């Protein structure tokens, strides 16, 4: 069974803090993704990575950066958290070619105060 795990289910941070969200997959997938999920807006792609140390901006990369030093791990970084980054963050992985199939983690509910 494919497993995508995220480091925290719930996280509360203060404005201006640096925030790290970690994601690990155990299926040796080439592709990994970070989304944020907001009511009425669906899933919006922040960044994705198609190989180690490779990354590509998604639709809403502003205020975020990512790191992929190892194939199984993909980190999302909020350099200086702001209240408008309060959201559900979902990590996903997929093989290549993806064929439309992505495996999602359970999500991290981030609240920025």
């Amino acid at each position, binding site marked *: 069974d494919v497993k995508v795990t995220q480091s925290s289910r719930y996280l509360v941070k203060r404005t201006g803090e640096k925030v790290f969200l970690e994601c690990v997959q155990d299926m040796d997938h080439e592709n990994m993704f970070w989304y944020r999920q907001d009511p*009425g*807006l669906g899933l919006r*792609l922040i960044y994705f990575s198609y190989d180690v140390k490779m990354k590509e901006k*998604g639709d809403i990369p502003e205020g975020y950066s990512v790191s992929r030093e190892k194939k199984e791990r993909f980190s999302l970084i909020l350099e200086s958290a702001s209240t408008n980054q309060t959201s559900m963050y979902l990590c996903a992985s997929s093989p290549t070619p993806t064929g439309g199939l992505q495996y999602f983690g359970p999500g991290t509910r981030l609240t920025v105060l």
Partner: protein
Amino acid sequence: QQQVKQSPQSLIVQKGGISIINCAYENTAFDYFPWYQQFPGKGPALLIAIRPDVSEKKEGRFTISFNKSAKQFSLHIMDSQPGDSATYFCAAILEYGNKLVFGAGTILRVKS
């Protein structure tokens, strides 16, 4: 720019009824159209998918209908059950692409 438009935003259906969720897309280069189901506290999971050369695909109580000329596709849930209560996302992807484009989601509640 929302490339996949999904409606309705929320839906309440009686147990045993038919749930219908509609999606429309703009990019004719999309080659694969999956639906994802998300239960509370969980990440989305692939439910069913269709390619544009097929007009309908059925898996159990779930059916995708696809209208290529209208650039629309829909999910029908027959004999809806309370256990089907979830958020449903339609999506689209380019051939050989890696990035899914998701609709805004539909919150389905099936009343018993």
